[in-house]
């Protein structure tokens, strides 16, 4: 069967000769010959990626671009513009070549031609270029550019006004640009195109979404136009007969909803938006790919919409698409996995129904996908599905089959993937109840420690969070395994990380490490108490509450140990000689954060626990430092937990003869 790659040399070379022949005629001085050659190239490359590639290699793009500038024969202009447009259509290398050949300003010049066909050809090709990320930046801040843009939008020619809308969709990125375009009246112009031709309407919907995105002011301006008439028009277009129009109007509504949810009070609108996007997922083309990402963005962090989607059978639909077996576009895979991740983020019903569809193989395959965005999305999906305690404790995620690819992703070249897989592992390692675990066998701990030294603060933070969960109620053997690798020096530098969020995770990890038996506490005394010193140093620096909470729990856990341990904590709390401002314990007790007050009271409880011989002395010290009197002032603390702990302290206090 003569398909695929088996290339008989005769065919290949004869087609190569033909291309070279056409190419040489492009440079002909005879306009008739040149025109014929241009038309031939155009007809060969339209719809044909392979031919675009081979003509590109021959250097056809600069040759055609020069045809565009050399003459004013309108047939030649039309053919060369169309050929350049085709090179730029869906072919990134082609866009680059067209721009490099200097064709962009020449195409712009065609728009001023008196021949309508030339204008059409120029506008079409420019629109192709503006659909690519490589299109030149269009600076709206320059007044003459803004004027030019409006001259395009005002044009009677549908290709030209469509081009205007495409430029906005491509080039408007910042809030300043959005504001500028709104102030210049671009919304009023765009809504006219909503009633225009198919291509005008599509370009208009895309640019509306760009101008309105995350800009509440622009949204309220748009909705205010003719008392909401155009919001209704866009909503109406979600029922259009063209799938592309339905998609673009949905994406526009998603942007409006995510920016200003107050315009979507009507439950019916929300649910029809969800169902329309779900239907569009089945579109095999580009629209289906974009619908998946649109859906995930619509339901992100919105429990009510997740519920609507779940009730509309979203999980089953998406899993069915994933199971079709045909190769899906990476963008679609990313969107589908992100949508599943959102669905599993809050609702336990969703997680259970998702996992009941035997999807682990799908997820595991996606972890190995060549596209980093797909791998990231699959990790997030894992993370959220593993929030299901029921499924987690059933050991569904801790099999070798799942664990090996996850651990391998810790070495991923993309830091987004690393952060995402750390998130997934953080949730999954909570289930490592058995002392012998695959994760550890595969060298997971070592790799997490490696990542805790990453250049990317997000990766450091996520690695420490995973380690923190891994050390939660861990046995001594696992703790030893971890500590022997990090050592006191390593831990101290984690606690002193420049990023507060990393410091917080490091302290939380330490809190879990020193929780449990007496042996665990010994870690902080390694190398002359280097770690304990670092903790106290951070606490003295008036840290953020979240960090202070973790730090105080470290002290609480250490203070639960032997007499020696308790004295060491006292030493850190009240070092000699002490500067006045250093009494951080007193400050923490006055914090607005009830959890910090609670953690601090816990430390006191452990320090004066009556079973230990030095408790009385420590109580005297705490009273003299003003801690006990402060606690007496707090007997009616607003937080119940704090109040109960304080009662415990005070009853211990009474047993020491203190009233």
């Amino acid at each position: 069967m003569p398909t695929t790659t088996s290339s008989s040399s005769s065919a290949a070379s004869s087609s190569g000769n033909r291309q070279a022949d056409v190419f040489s005629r492009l440079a002909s001085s005879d306009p008739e010959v040149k025109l014929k050659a241009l038309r031939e190239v155009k007809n060969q490359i339209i719809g044909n990626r392979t031919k675009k590639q081979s003509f590109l290699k021959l250097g056809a793009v600069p040759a055609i671009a020069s045809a565009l500038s050399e003459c004013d024969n309108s047939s030649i202009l039309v053919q060369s513009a169309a050929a350049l447009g085709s090179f730029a259509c869906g072919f990134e290398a082609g866009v680059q070549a067209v721009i490099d050949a200097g064709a962009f300003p020449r195409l712009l010049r065609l728009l001023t031609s008196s021949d309508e066909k030339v204008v059409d050809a120029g506008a079409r090709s420019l629109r192709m270029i503006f659909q690519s990320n490589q299109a030149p930046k269009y600076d709206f801040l320059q007044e003459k550019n803004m004027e030019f843009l409006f001259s395009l939008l005002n044009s009677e020619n549908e290709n030209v006004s469509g081009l205007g809308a495409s430029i906005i969709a491509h080039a408007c990125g910042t809030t300043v640009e959005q504001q500028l375009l709104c102030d210049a009246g671009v919304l009023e112009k765009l809504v006219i195109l909503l009633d225009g031709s198919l291509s005008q309407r599509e370009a208009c919907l895309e640019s509306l979404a760009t101008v309105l995105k995350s800009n509440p002011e622009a949204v309220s301006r748009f909705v205010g136009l003719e008392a909401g008439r155009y919001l209704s028009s866009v909503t109406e277009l979600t029922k259009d007969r063209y799938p592309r129009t339905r998609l673009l109007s949905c994406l526009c509504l998603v942007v409006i909803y995510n920016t200003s949810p107050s315009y979507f009070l009507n439950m019916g609108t929300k649910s029809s938006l969800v169902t329309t996007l779900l239907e569009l997922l089945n579109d095999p083309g580009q629209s289906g790919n974009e619908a998946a990402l649109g859906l995930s963005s619509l339901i992100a962090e919105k429990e009510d919409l997740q519920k609507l989607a779940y009730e509309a059978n979203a999980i089953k639909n998406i899993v069915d698409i994933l199971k079709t077996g045909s190769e899906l576009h990476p963008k679609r895979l990313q969107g589908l996995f992100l949508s599943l991740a959102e669905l599993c983020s809050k609702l336990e019903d969703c997680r259970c129904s998702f996992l009941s569809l035997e999807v682990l193989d799908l997820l595991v395959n996606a972890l190995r996908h060549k596209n980093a965005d797909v791998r990231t999305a699959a990790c997030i999906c894992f993370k959220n599905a593993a929030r299901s305690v029921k499924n987690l404790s059933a050991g569904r995620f801790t099999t070798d089959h799942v664990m090996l690819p996850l651990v391998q992703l810790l070495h991923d070249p993309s830091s987004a993937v690393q952060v995402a897989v750390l998130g997934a592992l953080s949730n999954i390692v909570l289930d490592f109840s058995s002392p012998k675990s695959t994760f550890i066998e595969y060298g997971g701990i070592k790799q997490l420690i490696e990542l805790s030294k990453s250049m990317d603060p997000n990766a450091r933070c996520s690695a420490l969070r995973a380690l923190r969960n891994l050390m939660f109620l861990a046995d001594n053997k696992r703790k030893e395994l971890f500590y022997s690798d990090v050592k006191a020096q390593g831990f101290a530098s984690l606690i002193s990380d420049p990023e507060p969020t990393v410091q917080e995770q490091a302290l939380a990890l330490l809190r879990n490490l020193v929780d449990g038996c007496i042996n665990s506490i010994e870690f902080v005394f390694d190398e002359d108490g280097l770690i304990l010193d670092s903790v106290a140093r951070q606490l003295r620096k008036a840290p953020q509450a979240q960090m202070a909470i973790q730090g105080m729990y470290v002290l609480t856990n250490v203070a639960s140990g032997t007499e020696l341990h308790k004295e060491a904590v006292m030493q850190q709390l009240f070092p000699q000689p002490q500067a006045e401002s250093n009494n951080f314990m007193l400050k923490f007790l006055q914090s607005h954060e009830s959890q910090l007050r609670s953690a601090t009271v816990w430390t006191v409880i452990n320090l004066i626990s009556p079973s230990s011989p030095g408790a009385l002395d420590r109580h005297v010290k705490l009273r003299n430092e003003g801690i006990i009197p402060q606690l007496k002032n707090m007997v009616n603390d607003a937080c119940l937990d704090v109040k109960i702990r304080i009662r415990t302290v005070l009853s211990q206090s009474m047993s020491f003869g203190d009233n």
Partner: protein
Amino acid sequence: MSLFRIFINQLDEDDLEMASSKKVITREEWEKKLNAVKLRKEDMNTLVMNFLVTEGFVEAADKFQRESGTKPEIDLSTITDRMAVKKAVQNGHVEDAIEKVNDLNPEILDTNPELFFHLQQQRLIELIRHGKIEEALEFAQEELAPRGEENQSFLQELEKTVALLVFEDASNCPVKDLLDISHRLKTASEVNAAILTSQSHEKDPKLPSLLKMLIWAQNQLDEKAVYPHINDLSTAQLQDPSE
């Protein structure tokens, strides 16, 4: 659509009796009701023009425009171009058709891989039909195989088409349908629809769907009443229920 609504609304105004005893409407009463339905002549003309334009009857559309003053939805010259493309495919001149589409709007085939593949496939079929085996093989390999690599379903269709070469007597093989004229017509109507869509025009005329609605409405009404039917759509003659 609006015509249809008026029709239904007028029927609703008369309280039809309970389902157990169907109301009988005589021809005289029925015609009186039908005459009471007000239809704007312009609406009827628009409907006719829509049909002529969509189906590509350019001369008829032109004449109808002059006689009735009804404006066509699109420039009539584009119909001529579209029909030329359609005709070229119907006659088996696919390469010619592709060039014409590209002159009309280069975006159509650049953004519609399925249509592009079907046209190329039709080209291959024509080569096979004319016994140009060498050329057909070269064409399949050079033009179609890369599309098959891009898309699994194209590959299957391509395999089916190339299978034509295997049989001594192609007119009697399992894939002989590909050589049928109806396959040309299918491809032609696919191109026709794509061009109409690119011109923001509906790809089907409104009239046939209105007639379908008429039949549906009669079926609905049959459950409630006995009345004169339109059975022959080409004459729209009313037929008494007893006939």
